[in-house]
């Protein structure tokens, strides 16, 4: 367990799933042939391979629909590979606790719920909750219902909960550039201290500034295929040269 050891190994990863489309065949055809129900197979990842080492921070680039989010769902263990394999040193955690939270409940109640959703045992909660509350710097707003929060306040709460469990491998599929400048600095410090203690960060972002600031390595996905893998600035340059970045909110 040291810096430089492989923490995630992805080999020939394929991911397919069914979706229903709007166009469907008539009922008679649906029953007679069993097809035409509108099910269509989406081939989101087509043989992706890479290794990520401990202490490494990897930015994932690619236009919309290139398979970035699917890759993260697979890495988080939420979508089993159709083919290929994912090997990990410890379970990667996706920074995204929003789904577990309840708008009508207070920030404090939601911290509890978010920690439990991340798999924390109830008897360890009390001390962790104190840290999270302090980190969010939400003050007495922590007692207010979540639905009264501004988007910045909510993002602070999400980040504080998700990073409180101190995962060894953190997957971030949303902007880290949230909240005011002071909070941005503190979240960056937290990420950096995680990387310093041989953690691994993988970040999906459309912001080239954020990618080049937080990551040293870049992986470019396009239509489910790995297009480039190397130092972040080189990959960004390559990505932008194709014009793909024109549409992105860089």
């Amino acid at each position, binding site marked *: *367990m040291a810096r430089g*050891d*492989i923490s995630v*190994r992805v080999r020939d990863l394929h991911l397919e*799933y*069914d*979706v229903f489309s709007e166009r469907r065949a008539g009922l008679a055809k649906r029953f007679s042939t069993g097809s035409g129900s509108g099910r269509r197979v*989406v081939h989101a990842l087509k043989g992706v391979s890479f290794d990520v080492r401990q202490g490494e921070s990897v930015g994932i680039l690619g236009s919309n629909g290139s398979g970035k989010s*699917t890759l993260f*769902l697979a*890495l*988080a*263990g*939420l*979508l*089993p*590979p159709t083919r290929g*394999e*994912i*090997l*990990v*040193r410890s*379970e*990667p955690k*996706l920074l*995204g*606790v*929003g*789904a*577990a939270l*309840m708008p*009508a*409940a207070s920030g404090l*109640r939601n911290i*509890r*719920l978010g920690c*439990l*959703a*991340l*798999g924390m*045992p*109830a008897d360890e909660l009390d001390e962790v909750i104190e840290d999270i509350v302090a980190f969010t710097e939400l003050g007495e707003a922590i007692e207010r*219902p979540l639905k009264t929060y501004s988007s910045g306040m909510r993002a602070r709460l999400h980040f504080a909960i998700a990073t409180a469990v101190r995962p060894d491998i953190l997957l971030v599929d949303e902007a880290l550039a949230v909240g005011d400048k002071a909070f941005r600095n503190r979240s960056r410090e937290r990420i950096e201290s995680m990387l310093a203690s041989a953690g691994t960060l993988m970040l999906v972002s459309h912001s080239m500034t954020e990618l080049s600031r937080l990551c040293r390595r870049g992986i470019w996905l396009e239509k489910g295929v790995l297009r480039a893998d190397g130092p972040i600035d080189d990959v960004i340059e390559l990505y932008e040269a194709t014009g793909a970045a024109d549409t992105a909110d860089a």
Partner: protein
Amino acid sequence: MAVSDVSAAQTPEGLRPLTATVSARQYLRDIWARRDFTFALPFEELRSSHLDTFLGNVWHLGNPLLSAGVYYLVFAHILNVDRGIDNYIVWLVIGVFAYHLTSSSILGGAKSIDNRQGLMRSFRFPRAIIPISNTIGHLLTFGFQLLVVVLVALGSGVGPSRRWLALPLVLLLHTMLNLGGSFVAARLNDAFRDVEQLIPFVLRLLQYTSGVMFSVDRVLAGDNVWAQRLITLNPIVAILDAYRWMILGNPMRPGALVVAVVESVALLVFGFRFFRAAEHSYGKP
């Protein structure tokens, strides 16, 4: 779905496969490890469900109390019927609330996978937690309804009894049936969303044949031996009878109760295995 640190084979570099199918035993252990979350989810939902009302948590009790009030008004004063049953209002309220626990658990179970898509796309946990926490949620609501049943019973002159001590056993039996049904409904509805449209009709048919609002023995079966046997096979009839025996001291058919126990355990075991067999398909985009 969750991978254990012990069972998964490690590579020389100390890596292990991320998604591996775990044994039933490990799966149950993973569920147990997540028990705090399983309870917190429906509990927080219940707690925050009436937060935006003036009376707030009073509604948990107010709701079933008003339901019971309406039944009392309609059946005892407007229609003036007792269908030949002693203490009909208490008898009816027990039947309605207890049947509602089963129907809402199963319908809720069917919808639960779809309702928790977001959760499943953010966190790893044994998916069985979703129908389980759905069942717990409805059980919490039923707790308040039971309190109303007791209030109505005491108000109508039924005294406390030692039979009330049987409540945990009756609840256990009832919950096994509801959970088993939820597991089956959850997987069926995840595979075919059409199922959710059919379930309400099945549940309504079941309601009229389970002795919720009238005695099935007298109205449906009469002297027909085969109809009597069929009724004995319906576990809900036996469960409602058990509640009524507890509160009102009505007679119970021991044979039917044994059948209900066997059926509930069988449904739970089958439902759990049936649900788990599709573990990896829940929550796919």
